[in-house]
């Protein structure tokens, strides 16, 4: 009996914009000039917010914060591919996603300031609770997709996690469920090369993270996560495929965490300046701006206008967050169960 190859897989990598802002026009996603402008505005808002949050943390005005610097294109490009009715399952580093989906900025600040009312997601936003436990929310997106499929709703679930998250069992169980039942879910892995101080090579021997999808019977693709056009294109295709009932996709956004893991971390202890500098040159904002400039969309005046708007929004958010009255201690009991237990009813009276 001869040996033969009965299965092999290939992993596609998608790049559209290079560092100089030149686009491969044959790969351009369908985006109008207005949409490109809107994407740029969101980008600036996300970066402005991130910068402010870091400053507020340094001043002791919010708690530990997980910055997104360098990952904005991965976050905004994917979130922008969804409809309002689709569901998002974020991890702790998705402030760019929240901004892109119109999450009230003051609530994001409240959340990082240790006020749980910040994650009482407004009713009109289909955004799930931020998951701090790594990777474990992958399953919830899969369950939500299962419900959508069962109820014949054409909604898609998109779940965000990091390179480190792919080592968790929940990630693998979720991928397996989604593949087995062909569920409308898009897995977005932001491979930012680090899980706190653990480098990407320590998470897995696989050459790419995208290839893991093949083991579960569906497609995985790697995109340049610092190229908002490539990210958007891959996400849009995955979302449409899911909506057509053709099952899940894993998107590996190949990017880099430019800042510390959180404000409680010091990345210079475990990674080289050279590595960081090499990625600085690949800044996702710069190349997008250059691209828009060549298209005649970006001008100095436009930048000024967008910067001002962003600053205004963030100023307002800061004020609103800091002027919020303290939560009632009885809130602790009020929401632990869907309704109060007899013992809680008594304790409520004692507060």
């Amino acid at each position, binding site marked *: 009996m001869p040996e033969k190859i009965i299965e092999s897989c290939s992993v596609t990598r998608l790049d559209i914009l290079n560092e100089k802002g030149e686009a491969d026009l044959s790969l351009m996603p369908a985006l109008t000039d207005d949409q490109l402008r809107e994407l740029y505005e969101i980008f600036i808002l996300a970066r402005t917010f991130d910068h402010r949050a870091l400053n507020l943390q340094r001043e002791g005005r919010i708690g530990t914060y997980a910055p997104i610097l360098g990952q904005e294109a991965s976050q905004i490009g994917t979130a922008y591919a969804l409809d309002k009715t689709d569901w998002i399952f974020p991890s702790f580093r998705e402030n760019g996603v929240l901004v892109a989906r119109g999450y009230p900025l003051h609530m994001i600040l409240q959340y990082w300031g240790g006020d749980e009312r910040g994650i009482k997601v407004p009713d009109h936003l289909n955004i799930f609770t931020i998951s701090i436990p790594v990777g474990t929310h992958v399953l919830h997106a899969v369950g939500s997709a299962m419900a959508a499929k069962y109820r014949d709703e054409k909604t898609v679930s998109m779940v965000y996690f990091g390179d480190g998250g792919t080592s968790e069992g929940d990630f693998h169980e979720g991928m397996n469920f989604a593949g087995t039942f062909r569920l409308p879910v898009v897995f977005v892995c932001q491979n930012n090369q680090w899980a706190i101080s653990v480098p990407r090579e320590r998470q897995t021997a696989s050459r790419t993270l995208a290839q893991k999808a093949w083991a579960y019977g569906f497609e995985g693709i790697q995109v340049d996560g610092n190229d908002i056009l490539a990210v958007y294109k891959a996400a849009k295709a995955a979302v449409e495929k899911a909506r057509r009932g053709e099952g899940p996709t894993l998107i590996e956004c190949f990017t880099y965490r430019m800042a510390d893991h959180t404000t409680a971390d010091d990345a210079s202890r475990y990674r080289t300046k050279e590595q960081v500098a090499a990625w600085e040159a690949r800044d996702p904002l710069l190349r997008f701006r250059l691209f828009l400039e060549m298209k005649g969309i970006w001008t100095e005046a436009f930048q000024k206008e967008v910067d001002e708007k962003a600053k205004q929004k963030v100023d307002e958010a800061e004020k609103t967050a800091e002027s919020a009255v303290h939560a009632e201690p009885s809130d602790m009991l009020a929401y632990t*169960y869907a309704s109060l237990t007899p013992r809680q009813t008594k304790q409520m009276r004692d507060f």
Partner: protein
Amino acid sequence: MPWTRIQADDSRRPGIFRSSHAVREISYRDAIREALSQALSMDPDVFLIGEGIDDPGGVFGTTKGLREVFGSERVMDSPIAENGMTGVAIGAAVAGMRPVLIHMRVDFLPMSMDQLINHAAKWSYMTGGRVKAPLTIRAIIGRGWGSAAQHSQSLQALFAHIPGLRVLMPASPYDAKGLLLGSIASDSPTVVIEHRWLYDQKEGVPEEAYIIPAGRGTIRREGTDISIVASSYMVYEALRAADELGKKGISAEVVDLRSVFPLDEELIIASVRKTGRLIVADTGWRSCGVSAEVAAVAAEKAHAGLKAPVRRICLPPAPTPASPALEQAYYPTFQQIAAAAGEIL
């Protein structure tokens, strides 16, 4: 919302298991099956998921034939991934479904502890009530057949420790149906623990759907000299002990907790105040267990009524043995309960 239309049995009916006169008698197993079938019929958002739940045996008969009626989308055979299944069910619950997760043995639930403790139990709180996880988990405990250390534990206290989870332990067919339906109807995640030795128990059970709210115990037998507070299978041992004690002229009251969390403190306190003596009989271990909680309620809130030290009848602090000889020594019976009563009377 079909669930608001169901009658709730809010009473702590005194007495006994129902006799056959009013309604037909069915087994604990069939009462569970009927509850699942009615839930599936009433509410298209209900679905069952578990490993092998559609196999011909049907989880001790409790899911038998349901797939044929409701289809494999609603009676879902799952890949072998307990944690995965729990997380997926939680996701579906949050998206508006009412999943019933079925574990053949409670021993497999430790695999899903992260999903239960860090997610299901927390979301209502963390989101200020916006997110609800109406999830029911059926888990089975038991005794015997050499099931031993990893297949025969009684882990109710682990779940009851966690704010945000509810834990129910029906002892009778009537309660099995009403508590299970109540749990499926509820927006709080609930673990319903069944005992294998109870599947053949019979009782009069109404055909229509009804709900027993969590947190309501019941008096199985009224008495005046001593209270025996028990749950699940231990209720039967308690009743036998009460029979034995009755022969000696001692009147024992048997309280069935039905709900381990929330606990029916009023019922426990009232019974202890009446009899002045308390024995707690639990299917689990003693240390930090359900029996400790019941004893603490008596100590904190019925202390003046207590005429004697509290006694607890629990498992010895060791894993479940496999050999029949050791099993015999391991599991407490009515004899230990009766003997403990003798010590404090």
